[in-house]
């Protein structure tokens, strides 16, 4: 009985926590091609057509990367860049950019 209870707890915990907890230090190393366009720390894009990533919500960033991977979100440049990213890479990159500071904030 306690074995079943333990299994149930493990199942619940694994369903309610993200698959990968992002590592921002690893993300920084993986972010070189991102910062080429989105600027240092993702906070100073080279074109105003590109979004500021620094300080954005972590799980919004990972959602966006996954949508570029699936083709649900379409952008020729991003499609090529995200193609080879693993789920761990996505989580690390999202953790890194979310940890950077910028002027980005929630509307008042």
């Amino acid at each position, binding site marked *: 009985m306690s074995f079943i209870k333990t299994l149930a707890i493990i199942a619940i915990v694994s369903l309610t926590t993200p698959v990968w907890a992002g590592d921002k230090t690893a993300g920084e190393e993986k972010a070189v091609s991102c910062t080429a366009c989105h600027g240092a720390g993702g906070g100073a*894009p080279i074109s105003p057509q*590109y*979004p*500021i990533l620094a300080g954005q*919500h972590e799980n919004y960033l990972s959602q966006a990367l996954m949508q570029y991977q699936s083709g649900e979100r379409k952008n020729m440049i991003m499609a090529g860049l995200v193609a080879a990213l693993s789920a761990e890479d996505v989580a690390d990159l999202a953790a890194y950019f979310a940890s950077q500071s910028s*002027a980005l904030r*929630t*509307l*008042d």
Partner: protein
Amino acid sequence: MTGLLRVCAMVCGLLFFSISYAEGDIEAGRIKAETCLGCHGIDGYNNVYPTYKVPKLAGQNMEYLVIALNAYKSGERSHPTMRSQAATLSAQDIDDIAAFLASGGEQ
């Protein structure tokens, strides 16, 4: 020489277009962006199915916001709520809202 002048005229034309395209009225945008606050004005507000926090928009680049709103409007970027929000926006509305958000979005 006329070739060079023609190129100059084309470059000037393009510059003119891109500048006028990027004009938005912050004050008009402030009023038009009130609906945005329902989700983007609540710190940590979650999108559901799938669950993720709705993005922070204040201080974002204006031209990116214009591109994003147009992509929602056309359906190229799929999100049911954002599509219905963007569907009735004119090009001017989008420019105004984007200008307001990029300016910091303070009500």
